[in-house]
């Protein structure tokens, strides 16, 4: 049983490999015709496999008949077949079933039993035309031929190439050429406009696409108000983003903190900045107070406990650490007795450094 299954599996593989796209159409038509004939014979339904098998047998019958007739015509030194070749082919195929007069050795072909049977069949059977109109197939498409050198008017490169041969393809198709500046600019422009188009589509939804100018920030802002995540990305130079190094000036401290918050927040999100603005301002105010506190402390007393509003889950821990470190730093500096402004600035710079070191860790956790 398994052997039989394996064999038929292999056969089906071969059949599917043979089956190509140009076989499908005539095969389908044959199936329809066979189904019509079977219906006239009395069947009301078909198994799919049975119908396919019968149509395949019918196709082979036609081909066998044609091959036999052609062979008989060739045997009679002709290339075109005539009626007698077909009758002989019919006799060959019907020899299994048998027909009247099959055993006669020298009977006339015109009066062959097969022909008589066919004549009888035609007279008895009702005419069933094919259900659909069949176009003439196979359809031959006009192939676009490559023009020759002569047709183009080109000189063939080399004397050994005659001009009636098809021309070579354009060198651009197979030679890689470096992209020029202009082309690069054009590419960039095209990409930019495409990006704009996509953003428009995303922001406006069902609205039709419209091109926005590079300088048109109003629409981008409008888009940003509706959904901050769909706002247009900022371009280079539009927003002042500070470099990473920290200036030692006091006035810059707030700016640095502000920009530290900006730097480490998700870039170019207006709403994020807005939400952090109060926190940053609070930090600024706190730091101002702490500065003043520090000034006082530096003179004689212990430094005050400094609370830092930091964004992140580990804020309380780090705040305490910072305050402790500040104490240590200030204690050490007080022993040495350097109470210059420069030292203050240095201390503040160190403090800012520490904060900025902590900040990326905390803000990155957001």
């Amino acid at each position, binding site marked *: *049983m*398994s052997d*039989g*299954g*394996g064999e*038929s*599996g292999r056969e089906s593989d071969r059949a599917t490999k043979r089956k190509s796209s140009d076989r499908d159409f*005539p095969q389908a*038509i*044959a199936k329809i*015709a*066979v189904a*019509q*004939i*079977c219906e*006239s*014979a*009395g*069947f*009301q*339904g*078909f*198994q799919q*496999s*049975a119908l396919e*098998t*019968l149509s395949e*047998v*019918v*196709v082979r*019958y*036609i*081909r066998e*008949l*044609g*091959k036999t*007739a*052609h062979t008989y015509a060739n045997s009679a030194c002709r290339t*075109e*077949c*005539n*009626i007698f070749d*077909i009758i002989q082919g*019919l006799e060959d195929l019907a020899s*299994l*079933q048998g027909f009247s007069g099959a055993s006669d050795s020298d009977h006339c072909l*015109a*009066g062959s039993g097969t*022909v008589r049977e*066919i*004549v009888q*069949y*035609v007279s008895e*059977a009702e*005419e069933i*035309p*094919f259900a659909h109109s*069949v176009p*003439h197939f*196979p359809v031959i498409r006009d192939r676009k031929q490559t023009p020759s050198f002569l047709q183009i008017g080109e000189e063939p490169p080399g004397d050994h190439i005659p001009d009636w041969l098809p021309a070579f393809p354009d060198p651009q198709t197979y030679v890689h050429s470096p992209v020029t500046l202009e082309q690069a600019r054009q590419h960039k422009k095209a990409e930019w406009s495409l990006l704009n188009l996509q953003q428009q589509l995303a922001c406006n939804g069902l609205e039709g696409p419209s091109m926005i100018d590079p300088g048109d920030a109003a629409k981008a802002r409008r888009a940003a108000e509706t959904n901050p995540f769909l706002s247009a990305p900022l371009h280079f130079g539009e927003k002042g983003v500070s470099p990473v190094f920290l200036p030692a000036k006091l006035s810059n401290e707030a700016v640095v903190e502000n920009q530290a918050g900006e730097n480490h927040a998700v870039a170019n999100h207006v709403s994020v900045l807005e939400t952090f603005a109060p926190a940053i301002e609070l930090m600024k105010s706190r730091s101002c107070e702490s500065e003043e506190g520090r000034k006082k402390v530096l003179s004689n007393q212990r430094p005050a406990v400094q609370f830092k509003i930091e964004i992140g889950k580990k804020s309380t821990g780090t705040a305490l650490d910072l305050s402790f470190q500040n104490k240590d730093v200030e204690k050490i500096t007080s022993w040495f007795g350097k109470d210059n402004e420069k030292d203050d600035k240095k201390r503040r710079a160190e403090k800012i450094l520490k904060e900025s070191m902590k900040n990326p860790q905390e803000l990155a956790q957001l």
Partner: protein
Amino acid sequence: MNQNQGGNDARHDDDSALSDFLASLVDYTPTIPDELVEHYLAKSGFQCPDVRLIRLVAVATQKFVTEVASDALQQCKARQSAVVKDKRDKQQKDKRLILTMEDLSKALREYGVNVKHQEYFADSPSSGMDPASRDE
């Protein structure tokens, strides 16, 4: 001489019958379309510009299919009547005559076409084999 003349007459009759038949074929439209027959005949090398011969081939094929179908129908009816011996209700239910592979293979066997169809389908090529010989 007489036999020869008789034979000649018979031949003439046959020829005339044939030509008449071919003439009548032009009016008769076979179920198998001409384009299909032409396509398959061309594939096997058959060359003929005459439409009547194409029609003759189509009619012959149609006759062949009708014969196979009627044989299969007889097989189907015989099987149904054999089953129905038990219950009369089934006869009314199974009025639908369906062309199955079983009936078709039995009918085609008389015409020299051996069609073997699947008894059942196995999941994998190794199913049903001896466990000892199976490679796993």
